[in-house]
């Protein structure tokens, strides 16, 4: 639960609490540590400008805002004094390819991956995913059903 209005200090504190979980979720979706970090920074900035609603699930909110930012603009941002993540992109891709999760997600679209990760990793229900992504609950159900079908096919092919 996020109080409103929110101070920068409070926002930063809440953001830090959720960082690791949301960052990992973004890595699973974007497969790129720099894009994941840039996207999460965008979500932080967006929250400073317009904090999430009081009853919003904070990790879900950060995740969706970051996914949107990454999808909206795939170009890298200027670096200047921005610290880079020491994690190599190839390293993450290899790591995900070795994981069952990585293989399951690899066959999905970015939107499907985002919704699957929101449900199975961040624990959001369909209603919350719909609210965060700004779509109807039926759209979420359909997208997730398609994604699960693909994942099942992936499991069948692998076995």
């Amino acid at each position, binding site marked *: 639960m996020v109080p409103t209005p929110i101070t920068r200090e409070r926002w930063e504190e809440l953001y*830090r609490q959720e960082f690791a979980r949301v960052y990992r979720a973004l*890595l699973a979706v974007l497969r790129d540590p720099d894009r994941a970090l840039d996207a999460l920074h965008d979500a932080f*900035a967006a929250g400073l*400008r317009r904090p999430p609603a009081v009853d919003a699930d904070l990790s879900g909110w950060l995740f969706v805002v970051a996914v949107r930012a990454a999808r909206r603009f795939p170009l890298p941002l*200027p670096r200047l004094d921005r*610290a*880079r993540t020491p*994690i190599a992109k190839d390293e993450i891709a290899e*790591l995900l390819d070795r994981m069952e999760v990585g293989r399951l997600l690899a066959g999905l679209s970015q939107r499907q991956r985002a919704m699957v990760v929101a449900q199975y990793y961040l624990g959001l229900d369909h209603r919350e995913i719909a609210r965060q992504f700004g779509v109807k609950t039926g759209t979420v159900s359909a997208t997730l059903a398609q994604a699960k079908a693909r*994942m099942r096919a992936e499991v069948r092919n692998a076995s």
Partner: protein
Amino acid sequence: MLPELSIERVFRREIDTLPVPPERSWVPTERGAHSVALSAAVIAGAALLVIAAVSSVLDVSDAASAQRPRLIGFPPNALPRCTPPATQTPSGRCVAPVPIAYRNQAYGYNLVIPGEWHDVQIQIPPQRAGGLLDRQVFTGRAASDWLMVTDTTAAAWDLDVQVWDRRGLSATEWSYTLGPCDHAVVSFGGHCQSTTGRVGGVDAIITTVAVGGNPAYTVSYYIERGDRILILRYVINTNAAPPAGVNEETLQRIVASLGLD
């Protein structure tokens, strides 16, 4: 089959093992505990010292060699190649101009630009000023090659520095109302990305706007300075050849050298 609980377990167990970056990089504005301006000044200073030292050593060596017959010369294809903007002298050494410290006294900012760059003050017709107080364009092009600027944006690969009357708007408000992120120009949710960063030791709003379908994008830095706003902007367009030796890093280095009163 994939039972729901099993999927959840696999997702949580595996995704939780993915690495996270160091904590210092988590929050955008906290990164880089030291001032960018200070770093830039130190780097520029170090560069000046190195250039001065190399030049004096080479000058001494040239003077000495002038007094004695040259015994062995470099065959032409063995001469070291110089990376632009450095040029090669007949003796084979690479010479680069010393960086220029630019000072805008009236609006209280400094920049370090490469030695072969120059600034162009844009005359602002009073009837079109609309709050624009000052505008300088920094370019690596020769004066004869310098291109036209539009009302808001200089040519690709130039750095456009504008000072505006802030009119009570914050840097964030400026970034999405009076620049290339203007919703009237860029469809909302389209190609404008905004973030925060530190430039000149202060917070800045940084926007990157793609020009639909083109391999071009505009990067703008918005910095509040009392009742004014300072905007640094450049356009990267891979379809437009940059001046020799200029790339996005050149422009970022100039921006990072910003010093404010």
